[in-house]
């Protein structure tokens, strides 16, 4: 069975982001970019399923600028078999991503799409759910354990109260949580092989998908600076200040 893994190119998690002077977004020029960590977990899970003989082909997909090819090469070096880039310079919001993925799913007919639960840049946490709705497929989000057998996926999910295990029929959508696995390092031979793997480039227009943004960003600002703290003499004063000054209890 085929598996589709969308990967997003985001500002590297080690970078301390800076807000652009015109408040339209964060500075991404000359900033280190890398694969969204949750997507790395998704690729790792797909590679594990392939190693276990459950999956026969892993297709990595990215949507965005030309440089997303680097992100796709990373996915290929980790073990994806081939890659598709939907190349566009437009702002792509989760609904547009889901629509584009739906079109690719129609083409590639995978039995499973594993996505990161969210991207660390906009933290939307929407794409997987929207894709499931558009495809009318079952979904299991925030996965921390995945078992595939008999045309079903048994997924242990992380929920606020603890863990929940669900069984869903394939084809299905799974989104990854932090503890699903530990992504591997790409080996040197695989990095070299990745350069030669197939990477197709298409455009949203060629797929007939309208990617016009539905949401408008008004402005982006830095969080308020933390004010200096004070020492309180005892617990009673602390409670008093929390209640009357901070008004949080």
């Amino acid at each position, binding site marked *: 069975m085929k598996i589709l893994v969308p990967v997003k190119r985001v500002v590297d*998690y*080690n*970078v*301390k*982001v*800076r807000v652009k002077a015109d408040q339209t977004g964060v500075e991404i020029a*000359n*900033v*280190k970019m*890398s694969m969204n*960590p949750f997507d790395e977990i998704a690729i790792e899970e797909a590679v594990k399923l392939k190693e276990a003989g459950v999956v026969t082909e892993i297709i990595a997909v990215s949507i965005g600028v030309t440089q997303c090819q*680097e992100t796709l*090469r*990373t996915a290929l*070096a980790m073990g994806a078999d081939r890659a598709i880039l939907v190349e566009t310079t437009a702002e792509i919001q989760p609904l547009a991503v889901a629509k584009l993925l739906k079109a690719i799913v129609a083409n590639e007919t995978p039995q499973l799409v594993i996505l990161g639960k*969210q991207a*660390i840049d906009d*933290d*939307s*946490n929407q794409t997987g759910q929207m894709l499931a709705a558009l495809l009318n497929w079952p979904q299991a989000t925030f996965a921390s354990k995945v078992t595939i057998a008999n045309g079903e996926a048994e997924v242990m999910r*992380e*929920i*606020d109260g603890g863990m929940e295990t669900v069984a869903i029929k394939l084809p299905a959508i799974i989104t990854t*949580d*932090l*503890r699903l696995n*530990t*992504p*591997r*390092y*790409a*080996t*040197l*031979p*695989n*990095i*070299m092989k*990745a*350069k030669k793997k197939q990477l197709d480039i298409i455009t949203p227009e060629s797929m007939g998908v309208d990617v016009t943004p539905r949401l408008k960003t008004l402005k982006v600002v830095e969080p308020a600076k*933390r004010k200096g703290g004070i020492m309180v003499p005892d617990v009673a004063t602390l409670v008093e200040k929390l209640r009357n000054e901070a008004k949080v209890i």
Partner: protein
Amino acid sequence: MGWNAGEKAALNAITLRKIRLPNAKMSCAFVKFNTPQPQREETTMSDYAAPLKDISFLLRDVIGLDQITKLPGCEEVTDDLVTPILEEAAKLATNVLAPINRSGDTEGAKWSAGNVTTPAGFREAYKQYSEGGWSALAGPTDFGGQGLPHSVSIPVSEIIGSANMAFKLCPLLTNGAVEALAQHGSQYVKETFLPKMVSGQWTGTMNLTEPQAGSDLALVRSKAIPQSDGTYKISGTKIFITYGEHDFTDNIIHLVLARIEGAPEGVKGISLFVVPKNMVNKDGTLGARNDVKCVSIEHKLGIHASPTCVMMYGEDSVTTGGATGYVVGEPNRGLEYMFVMMNAARLGVGLEGVSIAERSYQHALVWARERVQGRPTTPVPAYLGDKPKSVPIIFHPDVKRMLLTMRAYTEATRALIYWTASCLDIAEKSNDAHEKQTHQALVDLMIPIVKGWSTEVGIDVASLGIQVHGGMGFVEETGAAQYYRDARISTIYEGTTGIQAIDLVGRKVGREGGATAFALIKEMENVLPLLDSANDVNLKAFGRALTAGLKEFKRATEWTALTFPANQGAVNAGAVHYLKLAGTVCGGWMMARAALVAAKQLACNDGDADFLKAKIMTTRFYGDHILTLATGFADALVTGAESVLQMEEAYF
């Protein structure tokens, strides 16, 4: 932001896991920390981050990867391959090797009854390193290697060495042994040993030194007795054998210098042998244990995790007749074979200077930003408040001077080594005979300079790293002292600085009347008009400093070429001054090339402005504070011989 409560708990759990299990790959990925320094663009949870920006800037924009790509066999070495290789190597270095650097130093390698146990985590790290294919990076493609050029393997090696110098020595020595066997080994030797050495399943060692034969290998006494089946029985004691015994792999392949019975005296009677720890059967499985044993390991100033072994060959020779070995190449040509790979090995050790300098600089920089002490004497950023009583020490001019010295030396030595590596690639691979020859001459000239100067500078930088920490630097727990102790070996092994300097003034400059050095000076002078015409006050100032430095280098080279034939002793007396002068000026030339590219990129708004500005400022600093040493070195060389030669031994 979309973090729920469970998420935060998970993050904490992962943070803890990382602290407890330094090998775990999952770094505390999703934490972005808020430091009080708005200028600081990148920050990481680990204490080492590979300087990928400087590395790729040098490779791509200053030295030019395209020069390498056009070499036969290097067609694939393009930016889109090199970048992911460097990034992945950096991940391995930061997450796997760097976290066991300090614990490796504290714990050290342990010897017991002939066996050596490496510190906790090293065995697993080696497994990850070799299984990831990193051992095979530069290995010959015929035996499973990737055959990547020095221009790629050198930066990777720098990163690995910064993360963990004691660890890096094992692959370094293995690569040297692979190169020797690939060039000179018989078909049998190559097929038996190379594939597993290239893959890292087995490691290699170099056994040159004996108690009475250090810098002077003519004194080697280990002997080899020819056997009727074509093998030899080797016996003797070898010392200072890096990773001569360890617990990484199930076999270790020793390359050993020894004399065949009846061979001529001196260097012309030394042969090279390959002696496996465990014999290898025809089907590739391991056979009987060979008569070679690690009888002890040294207690050293630094690189504690790297076992430095005393190796005994033929301890049971009464019953075994000695350790079984196979001659490499022709008998009596062992030293010659060693010298062929000396260039790559010396380049690799010179690189250790850069690795340690970079690590030490990063360590000192973090401290200088955190340690709050003393009233500022210069304007400070507003976020420190109005008239602060004390500020992070990075705001004090003398601390800035120390950090800049560290940074300037690190960047200059890195650039010079990368450039030398590119020359070595061209010399080895080019189809153009003239290009090959001129680059080989450059490599021969540069090797003693980069080996000697980069390692001397590495020690100076690591020493400044301690100084920036003040008293806390003298305390081991801070970690700054380890770099200084680890760096200390680099000016000694693979030919001391003195040996490098004598090689430089003798074989490389004196003997050919300075021809290659003068050609290089001429080439370096080409950069001066560019600096002078640059629309940047810093570059203009640097141009003046480099002009003066080049003048001194020329003067010293003329004196050396003239004096050497008649008075070798006088030249040797100041040879180290000449070596440091050459390094300082050539390093300045590379800084100029880098700064010119940076200025150009800045002008077209191409690239990270902060990085480019820092490059130009660091270059300016190099001119004002480091290139100015050139005059002193030249004077000491030209006028200082008398005071050395006239001092009689009895007066000491």
